[in-house]
């Protein structure tokens, strides 16, 4: 009797576990999937990303001629909002700056200020939004990467 119940509970636990993981991959967070793969969190993210980010084949600004300054979308990331401003010179990202940073609380502000310079260096090194999230600041990293990607998209659309 009791052993049977234990087996039921274990089985149910496995089902519950799987259900949440499946639901998570299907629904995801309110941060778009394109961003999550951009932030390097979920390698091989779903192919539907490509529709939102047509630049996946050529992630960086290569091929863009001239000197441009573009501002990415203001991106909410749970603990705050961030937007970046990119300067692109003949197909190379030459600077990444913060155009807007608003946080829900002072700690998140501290975190953001700590990690944003690191994220900027990663973007410069990768020459794209494909950067890895910084631990303890996953959402900040995601939001940041998303804004970078949206700036690049805007640039390519011209």
């Amino acid at each position: 009797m009791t052993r049977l119940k234990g087996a039921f509970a274990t089985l149910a636990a496995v089902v519950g576990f799987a259900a949440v993981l499946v639901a998570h991959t299907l629904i995801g967070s309110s941060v778009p999937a394109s961003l999550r793969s951009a932030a390097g969190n979920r390698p091989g993210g779903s192919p539907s990303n490509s529709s939102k980010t047509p630049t996946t084949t050529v992630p960086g600004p290569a091929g863009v001629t001239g000197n441009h300054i573009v501002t990415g979308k203001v991106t909410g990331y749970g603990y705050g909002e961030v937007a970046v401003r990119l300067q692109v010179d003949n197909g190379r990202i030459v600077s990444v700056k913060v155009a807007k940073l608003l946080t829900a609380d002072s700690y998140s502000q501290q975190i953001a200020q700590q990690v944003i310079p690191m994220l900027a260096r990663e973007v410069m090194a990768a020459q794209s939004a494909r950067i890895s999230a910084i631990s303890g600041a996953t959402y900040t990293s995601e939001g940041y990467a998303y804004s970078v990607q949206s700036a690049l998209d805007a640039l390519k659309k011209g």
Partner: protein
Amino acid sequence: MASVTFERANDTSRRRGQPRQATAKRLSRPPRPGVVDLAVVLFGLGLGASVALALTAETAAGMKAPGGVAMFIGNLTGLAGTYLALVMILLVSRIPVVERTLGQDGLLAWHRRLAPWPISLIVAHAVFLTIGYAQAAHTGVMHELSTFISSFPGMAIAIAGFGILVVVAVLSIYSVRRRLRRETWWAIHLGMYLAFALAFAHEVVLGPSFVNHPLTQAVWSAAWAATAGVVLVYRFGLPIYRSLHHRLRVVELRPEGEGVTSVILEGRHLDRLPISGGQFFEWRFLKRGLWWQAHPYTVSARPRPPYLRLTVKAVGDHSAALARLEPGTRVAVEGPYGAFTAHARRHQRAALLAGGIGITAARSLLEDLPKRSQPVVVWRVASEAEAALAEEVRQLVSHLGGKLHLLAGSREEFPLEKVVGLVPDLATRDLYVSGPEGFVSGVVGLLRHSGVAEEAIHSEVYAL
């Protein structure tokens, strides 16, 4: 008032000219084993989901970064620990259908068995997250703690809640707990409700599985809101409603034997009270010095509207004080609770094994047994003088065509083997065992040993 009788209403030995009190017929609703199966499945689903929830917030890169592993463990233990705490609260929330299926003793046993898990998981949660954040921010643990309190939303109150949890956990360690008065410990341990209420905000505002995930946030909040609702309704609302509705008052105290007293109460609408023989209430006598503690006592007879009776043996402060109650004292009740009822029967015939005051449950249960149950009652009691209610038991047993063995004497004279040995054809009867802890566990052990099926053994231990 001395005319209240709980003897069988149609018995010829009833004194003539006495008003007849009809027995209330409304039984408690039957247990629903299916509900327990459902609860077991829901429990598993929730546990799996909570663990998976921690994984959804994790990334390979995050794990590699400084503090990543500690943070992951911290999030996982936090989610699993809080989930198990929710289950513990539900186990004692007195949901009626669960209560009458598993019995309060069964539910409390699970509540206790589970207790070390959420506590140690939540302690691990606090430790690992502090270490993880300190590693990520490249600061010390102490510095990180002050950052938590000063900068994180919801963290100051969550840490207060954690403090309460630690205090209660320490007081619950057996060697500490047995130094405390039972009522003192019990009152303090209710602080856990406050602890989890305080911790709630930081979970959904800061938890990486919840931030940015409105759906999980909503589901988690709904689960806790529902739990709080269940507790409010069944632990507070229903008892208050019942107490006000029935307006019980003490009308008579009747000495039944050495140290044993029946407390007879009068109340309204007792014919509408769903109760089975063998069930008990948590009684709160609203009198100076007594109102703040509720103790469990079995109804020693089915209600005879407008009367209700409990029979109490003086073993300590509360039970001794009941013999000194004044008529008119108002009484609040929680219940009826318990699965020690005629609903639990699996066989046609039954045997009731009672130790000492454990006869109260057997006595009221006898009223619910059908004639074909031919109950064999074996009752061990220290002396004839303590054999309260013996006359009523004798009458009920003879009415049902059963047999009563009253064993008045010491444990040496009547060892448990002898008690069990008096029941003929054990395998074809339901066995109802009630009384002090030693008696019940001893008898149940012997029954199991003789091969009696688990489903046929029903017990009520007179200690929680």
